[in-house]
C-alpha cells in the first residue's frame, strides 16, 4: 500500500515539476530571438539553457510516465503514454498528456537532428512548441490531482501568465529586432575579409554544445 501511494505521489510530483520545466523551456525559447543578453548572461547561455531544460523535461516526463504506469491503481498502460485517447482511465485528459509527450519528443528529436534537417524545416517543425505547451497545461489542469486548488493551481496560473506575456512581447518585438539586424547588403564583404587567427586564444569553456 505504501509503495502504491509513493508511486502516485511520485507521478504527481514529477508532473508538476515537468510543467514548470516545460514552461521554463518555453519562456527561454520565446526570448531567444529577442536577442536579450548582457555581460553576465551571454546569448549562448540562453540557447544552452533552453536545450538542457528541454532534455530535463524529457527525463522528468519519463519518470512521470513510468510511475503512472507502474502504479497499477489507475490501470494506465505503457501504450497510453504515447497513443492518445485509448486509456481506460480518463481517456481525454490522459490522451492530451500523450499528445503533449509525443509533440515534445518530436520537438527534441528534430532539434537534435537540426543540422541534418536544415534550418528552415526545423524552424517550421519547432512551431509545434506552441501546440505542445498548451496541451500539456490542459492535461495538467484537467487530470492533475493537485491542479484545482492551492499552490499548484496558483503556480499553473503564473506559468500561463508568464508564457502569455512572453508570447505578446515576442510577437511585438520579434519582427522589430529582426529588422534592425538586417544590413543593406547581406552578401557582405566583411564576412569574407581574411584575418589571421590570433595567437594564444582558447574558446570559452563550458559553453553550450
Amino acid at each position, binding site marked *: 500500500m505504501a509503495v502504491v501511494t509513493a508511486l502516485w505521489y511520485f507521478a504527481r510530483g514529477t508532473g508538476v515539476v515537468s510543467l514548470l520545466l516545460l514552461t521554463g523551456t518555453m519562456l527561454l525559447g520565446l526570448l531567444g530571438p529577442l536577442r536579450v543578453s548582457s555581460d553576465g548572461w*551571454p546569448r549562448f547561455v540562453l540557447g544552452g539553457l533552453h536545450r538542457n531544460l528541454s532534455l530535463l523535461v524529457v527525463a522528468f516526463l519519463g519518470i512521470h510516465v513510468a510511475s503512472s504506469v507502474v502504479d497499477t491503481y489507475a490501470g494506465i498502460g505503457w501504450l497510453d503514454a504515447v497513443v492518445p485517447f485509448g486509456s481506460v482511465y480518463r481517456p481525454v485528459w490522459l490522451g492530451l498528456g500523450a499528445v503533449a509527450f509525443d509533440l515534445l519528443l518530436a520537438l527534441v528529436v528534430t532539434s537534435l537532428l537540426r543540422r541534418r534537417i536544415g*534550418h528552415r524545416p526545423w524552424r517550421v517543425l519547432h512551431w509545434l512548441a506552441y501546440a505542445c505547451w498548451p496541451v500539456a497545461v490542459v492535461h495538467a489542469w484537467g487530470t492533475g490531482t493537485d491542479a484545482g486548488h492551492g499552490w499548484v493551481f496558483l503556480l499553473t496560473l503564473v506559468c500561463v501568465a508568464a508564457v502569455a506575456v512572453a508570447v505578446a512581447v515576442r510577437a511585438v518585438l520579434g519582427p522589430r529586432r529582426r529588422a534592425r539586424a538586417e544590413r543593406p547588403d547581406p552578401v*557582405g564583404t*566583411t*564576412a569574407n575579409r581574411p584575418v*589571421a587567427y590570433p595567437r594564444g*586564444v*582558447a574558446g570559452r569553456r563550458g*559553453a553550450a*554544445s
Partner: protein
Amino acid sequence: MAVTAPHLAVDPIACQAHGLCAELLPGVVTLDEWGYPILPAGPVPPALRAAARRAVNACPVLALRLATD
C-alpha cells in the same frame, strides 16, 4: 592524400547577426558594425577545434559551419 583541415565559414545570406559565434570564440570571431561575424582565414588551430564546433552547433540559424573544401 592529405585531408584538408577544417576552416570556419559563414553563409552570409543565412546569417542573422545573432552573434553567438563571437561570444563562443572571443578573440577569434569579431563582429562588424552590424553584428555580422568576421572570421579568421585558414584552418582552425587544433586547440580551438572543440570551441569552433561548439560555436557551429550554437548558431541559431545554422549559418556557421566548419568547411573542409
